[in-house]
């Protein structure tokens, strides 16, 4: 009596795993965060630092067993503590000095090695907006520069996943490429010393069939209930 029950149980587990592997039509949320911090502490002057954080959230859906499409939202925030040389002494200044937001569409093509592990790669289109405020020393003058830039880029990314449970996947990016991008920037220069200013409009493009590998970033993916 025991043996058939065991067998049925085993069969059920097998069935359950095959059901788990069914991805078509399933929706997921994916996300990752990153934090950077660096500190410089020289002998003679006060310490300065740089910090930044980024977050990205994706919403996607498997349209077939091996293909997923979705939207990606990303944002970052950066700040620093710098020293300004004013009237013969250093004066600290700290605060948020840059931020950015982006939205993109992605397509991912999968190769599932087994129940647990697989790889994916695919193209994406991204539109991003960035703001940066910096202080530059320019010919004995201090230039407070504000840059507002908008960029449209075509990229390719690749990654690997590991299935932690039915609902959760661990995601790791492996490499990325940005073969083509176009950007528009508006730059405001404010020369504090001479009390003058200038405005610039910049248009740039970049075509480069290169990729960066490896580029490892970890993220998590959560599958929504059907």
């Amino acid at each position, binding site marked *: 009596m025991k043996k058939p029950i065991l067998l049925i149980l085993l069969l059920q587990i097998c069935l359950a795993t095959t059901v788990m592997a069914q991805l078509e039509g399933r929706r997921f949320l994916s996300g990752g965060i990153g934090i950077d911090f660096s500190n410089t502490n020289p002998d003679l002057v006060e310490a300065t630092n740089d910090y930044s954080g980024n977050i990205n959230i994706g919403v996607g859906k498997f349209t077939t067993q091996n293909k997923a499409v979705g939207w990606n939202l990303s944002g970052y925030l950066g700040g620093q503590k710098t020293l300004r040389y004013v009237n013969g002494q250093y004066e600290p200044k700290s605060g948020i000095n840059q931020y950015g937001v982006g939205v993109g569409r992605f397509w991912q093509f999968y190769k599932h090695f087994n129940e647990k592990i697989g790889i994916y790669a695919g193209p994406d289109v991204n539109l991003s907006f960035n703001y940066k405020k910096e202080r530059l020393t320019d010919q004995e003058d201090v230039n407070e520069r504000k840059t507002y830039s908008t960029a449209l880029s075509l990229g390719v990314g690749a990654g690997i996943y590991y299935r932690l449970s039915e609902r959760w996947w661990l995601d790791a990016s492996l490499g990325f490429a940005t073969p083509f991008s176009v950007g528009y920037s508006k730059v405001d220069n404010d020369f504090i010393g001479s009390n003058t200013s200038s405005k610039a*409009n910049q248009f*740039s*493009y970049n*075509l*480069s069939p290169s*990729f*960066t590998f490896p580029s490892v970033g970890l993220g998590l993916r959560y599958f929504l209930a059907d």
Partner: protein
Amino acid sequence: MRKLILFSSLGILCLVGEVQAQLAKGTRYWGATITSNGQINDEDYESPYKSTNNFVNIYPSLRTGWFFKDNTMFGLDLSPSISFSRSKYNLSGDDSEYKYNGLTVNLTPYIRKYKSLSPKWLLYVHSGATLSYVRTKNTNTNESDFKNGYGAGLNIVPGVAYRLTPRFWLESDVSVFNLNLSYVNFNNTNSVNFRTGLTSQIQQYFTLRAAWYIQKSN
């Protein structure tokens, strides 16, 4: 028993033949890649001063090769680099213009040796001797000034190739190990540069090249 040995060795021969089939003697090779960037910058100052700066850089590369024996190719690479830049300044109605055109033509005869890892992956070692010619033109409002130079170099770099279709491959140099020696004479100034290394840097920036292997039809 003899039959078995005969058939198995025939089988091995077939397998070997299949792996090497991509790179048999007489195969023709073509490779191409391009990198380019550019910018237009328009700047207005509060005082009556305006400036416009534009630049475009184009780096195409085209190479061809012949397999003079199995897994070994002799070829030629032509990689010009072209740069244009133009600056215009206007100070209270006074115009001044500055132009720069730069052209470098690199011609590299090379020998490449292949090692097949699987029917889809190939490793290669690429060694070449580069001859280059540099010509720049500076134009300041109406006066032009030409400068010429030449250079020579030796370069060894390994790489990998991946098969997408039997004829079409993607390849990339891997500068984990490379050897580079170059000499440049430009505007009566000589410079010598030597660079080699086994880099420990894991992250790499790879430039992809499209490659075609066209077998001789016989």
